[in-house]
């Protein structure tokens, strides 16, 4: 949706509220996804939808109503429902008034070619990936997804435009493209993926080639004993672990409530000196929104600098508690979760994952991890499985496939044991390098 159209809808809502304190958020767009498996297209979908969320403030009370009827009648009904929700609830003593107008950095995230890419073009690219798998006698499975706007991975909708009755207006439109491919040979598998704001770098054939090579190397995996290993984690694996860490660690509310490993440790050294981690939607490999769900400008925030805990990320509420400014990481108000860092950037080194492999005498190469979950929040101990390519590294070379492991590993401990890093990539919603890590805890084996 164009800026003027979005603004007109939000302005109409503010005007229909007839002077009430009101915040209006519009989100949505299009999500088109071609899914393939067994070397054919199995699902092929496109959705177009928008959602309007209206929040009314009456003194220290606030309530929200959400709907997708964007007609004048529909908007009026939403305002009525939000007012009703607000009227019936007790006061929130710490509720903040709406913010006034803000200034935002522009992010060049809208790629017209990506926005208009159709099902035929997606099918052609999928066809190239499938052809590689067929040639190798493997089964290809994956997706080619193209989005414009703010529909999330599970259909959740983020803010595309926000306005309020104090004159704030924010708008950001971006595109994204993702191509993922798995190549399967019975229980052996390989995987490769690419993500960007633009389809221009998508190469289904090249990705499929990588997945096929990994699957071929995975055949006849040997069983290694569980234990602590030196591992090379490819960027996709690192990203998954960092995302989970972020959800339970980097928001200011978590820190304030004592639930984060950073609680009471800001200013202290908590990681190895080679670890610098920030949240930065303006990084060219992210191109995220320049504002949060309160309409506050997002400020790039250094979370860890050379191993020292520097800062959590803040929304207005948690910032007010500490007498500081929001960093623009808030969710829709009110909420029980607090702010979230969603554009992580881990500083990397130079060279590729293959350079990390060369440094390992005996260890494991982890392509990606799967089904991670939190075992212990204060140590950021996660469990999960290796997947789609676990390999032995012996004397600097990948030698054979290894049966997958379950790991139970503290990410804090892991980031204290990083020997080397590759160059950064965009993977799994994070910008990060591959890591060479010592003492990674593989706790049990599985059957493949």
């Amino acid at each position: 949706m164009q800026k003027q159209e979005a603004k007109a809808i939000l302005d109409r809502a503010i005007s229909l509220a007839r002077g009430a304190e009101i915040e209006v958020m519009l989100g949505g767009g299009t999500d088109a996804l071609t899914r393939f498996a067994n070397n054919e297209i199995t699902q092929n979908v496109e959705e177009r939808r928008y959602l309007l969320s209206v929040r009314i403030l009456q003194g220290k009370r606030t309530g929200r109503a959400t709907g997708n009827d964007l007609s004048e009648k529909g908007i009026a009904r939403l305002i009525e429902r939000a007012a009703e929700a607000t009227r019936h609830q007790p006061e929130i003593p710490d509720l903040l008034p709406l913010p006034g107008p803000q200034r935002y950095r522009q992010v060049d995230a809208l790629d017209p070619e990506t926005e208009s890419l159709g099902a035929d073009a997606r099918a052609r690219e999928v066809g190239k990936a499938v052809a590689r798998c067929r040639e190798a006698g493997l089964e290809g499975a994956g997706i080619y997804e193209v989005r414009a706007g703010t529909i999330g991975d599970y259909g959740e909708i983020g803010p595309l435009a926000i306005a309020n009755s104090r004159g704030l207006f924010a708008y950001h439109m971006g595109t994204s493209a993702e191509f993922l491919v798995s190549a399967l040979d019975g229980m052996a598998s390989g995987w490769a993926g690419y993500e960007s704001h633009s389809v221009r770098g998508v190469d289904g054939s090249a990705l499929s080639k990588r997945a096929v090579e990994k699957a071929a190397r995975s055949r006849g995996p040997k069983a290694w004993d569980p234990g602590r290993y030196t591992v090379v984690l490819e960027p996709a694996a690192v990203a998954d672990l960092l995302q989970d860490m972020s959800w339970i660690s980097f928001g200011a509310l978590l820190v304030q409530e004592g639930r984060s490993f950073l609680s009471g440790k800001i200013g202290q050294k908590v990681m190895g000196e080679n670890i610098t981690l920030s949240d930065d939607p303006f990084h060219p490999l992210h191109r995220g929104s320049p504002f949060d769900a309160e309409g506050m400008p997002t400020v790039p925030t250094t979370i860890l600098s050379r191993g020292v805990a520097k800062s959590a990320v803040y929304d207005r509420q948690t910032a007010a508690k500490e007498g500081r400014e929001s960093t623009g990481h808030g969710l829709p108000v009110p909420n029980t979760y607090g702010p979230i860092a969603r554009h992580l950037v881990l500083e990397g080194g130079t060279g590729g994952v293959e350079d990390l492999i060369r440094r390992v005498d005996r260890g494991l190469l982890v392509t990606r991890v799967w089904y991670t979950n939190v075992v212990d929040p204060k140590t950021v101990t996660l469990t999960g499985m290796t997947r789609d390519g676990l390999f032995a590294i012996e004397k600097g070379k990948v030698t054979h496939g290894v049966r997958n492991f379950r790991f139970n590993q503290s990410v804090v401990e892991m980031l204290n044991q990083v020997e080397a890093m590759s160059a950064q990539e965009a993977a799994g919603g994070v910008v990060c390098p591959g890591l060479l890590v010592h003492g990674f805890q593989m706790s049990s084996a599985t059957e493949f």
Partner: protein
Amino acid sequence: MKDLARLAIDTAQARGASYADARAIELTREDIQVKNGEVGGLDLGASAGIGVRVLVQGAWGFSATDDLTKDGIERCAASAVSIGRASASLEHDAVRLAPEPGHRAVWASQCAKDPFQVSLETKLDLLFRIDSEMRAVQGVKNAESFLSFQRKHQYFLSTEGADIEQTLTRSGGGFSATAVSPDDVQRRSFPQAEGFHQALGYEFIEATPYVQNARRIAEESVALLTAEQCPAGERDIILEGSQLALQIHESVGHPTELDRVLGMEANYAGTSFLTLEKQGKLQFGSRLVNLVADATLPHALATFGFDDDGVQAQRWPIVRDGLFVGYLTSRELAHRVGEDRSKGCVRSDGWFHIPMIRMVNLSLMPGSGSLEDLLADTGDGLLMETNRSWSIDQLRYNFQFKTELAWEIRKGKRVRMLKNPTYQGITTGFWNSCDFICGPEEWKPWGVTNCGKGQPGQVAEITHGAAPARFRKVTVGVGYED
């Protein structure tokens, strides 16, 4: 809305679809949260839209829109056909739908007291009473409670003559207390982790003893901070119903989804170790283990009149006397296991997403005896309660769960509370070690409301009934050995 669904399938057919169905859905929600004496969220949600699914040259296309004008619907249907044509442009086996009569029916879940007619004051009053009970306990850092209501009103029309109107209402809620020390975070929840929902009206909320349990749960969260760590080793464990429900969900439900078995989820959720040759041959569990899929279970979250393929709800065995016998199927895939009718397991989480195989209600049938009988029979072991985390590999062999607490059992009695209990195993070995399942008096429906699957991701809600059960010589304490 029904006229729009009709327009959609007529348009799709005119554009060349050999089959089309349309789901026109109005969804109403109400979500209320209270945290530490304040409203943490209050959102009244409504959305309406239409999803059109077509077969063109034997390949699927799907398009969804919230533009409910005549032009908008026609564009959406035309788009679905174009997408289907693009799907067909790659070499493929033509989709064959198992036959199903074109049902014409109206179906609604039971709802004695419409939750959307109960005032917000009444709901907030309940949440604040729960909240104050929890916060009366010293040491509770976060008291969080919620209520959630949803109504889905759906028309399903197909070019095969189906004309089905369904209304599903569900109500639920729950609460948790979190206690924090400098090096520990402990949580207790009620009635289960992430709350508990049923396909009922507000009468379900009124019948659930939230307030009566709030203080106990809060006290247990604080007590966990000073409880002993659950030691690592091999122990006999008893899983209470809600944890067992998630165990069923992850290690039985997902691996029996036929789309996973056939590789259609390979890139994301994974495949399954329950490959076709194992049906009727694999001793999945001990002879005590009987698991039944049932889309007709009263008040359950995945109970319906008809699935999103238009197939009537059914009940059938998945594991009988320990033997793996059944899959969760669709019209598209039933023939792959030699069946001439779908079991009716296709659902979507909204008008905007394509229907796919999702778990229906899947329950462990009760054995005999009370929980006290089971404890007495156990001697020494661990009773694990309420899920805290979960993980399982992409073929569904290796799992690991953590519960909020464990009770150490000695000589048949609960002797002390242990914190951070984890257990890990391999699916078939674990279910074959089951040697005691409590009886019908201990059997309850539990639920999962956050089951993710598919690309784009979809969230499903499923009920799993279970009574406490015992599993022998299970690895416990994983992740806390050092």
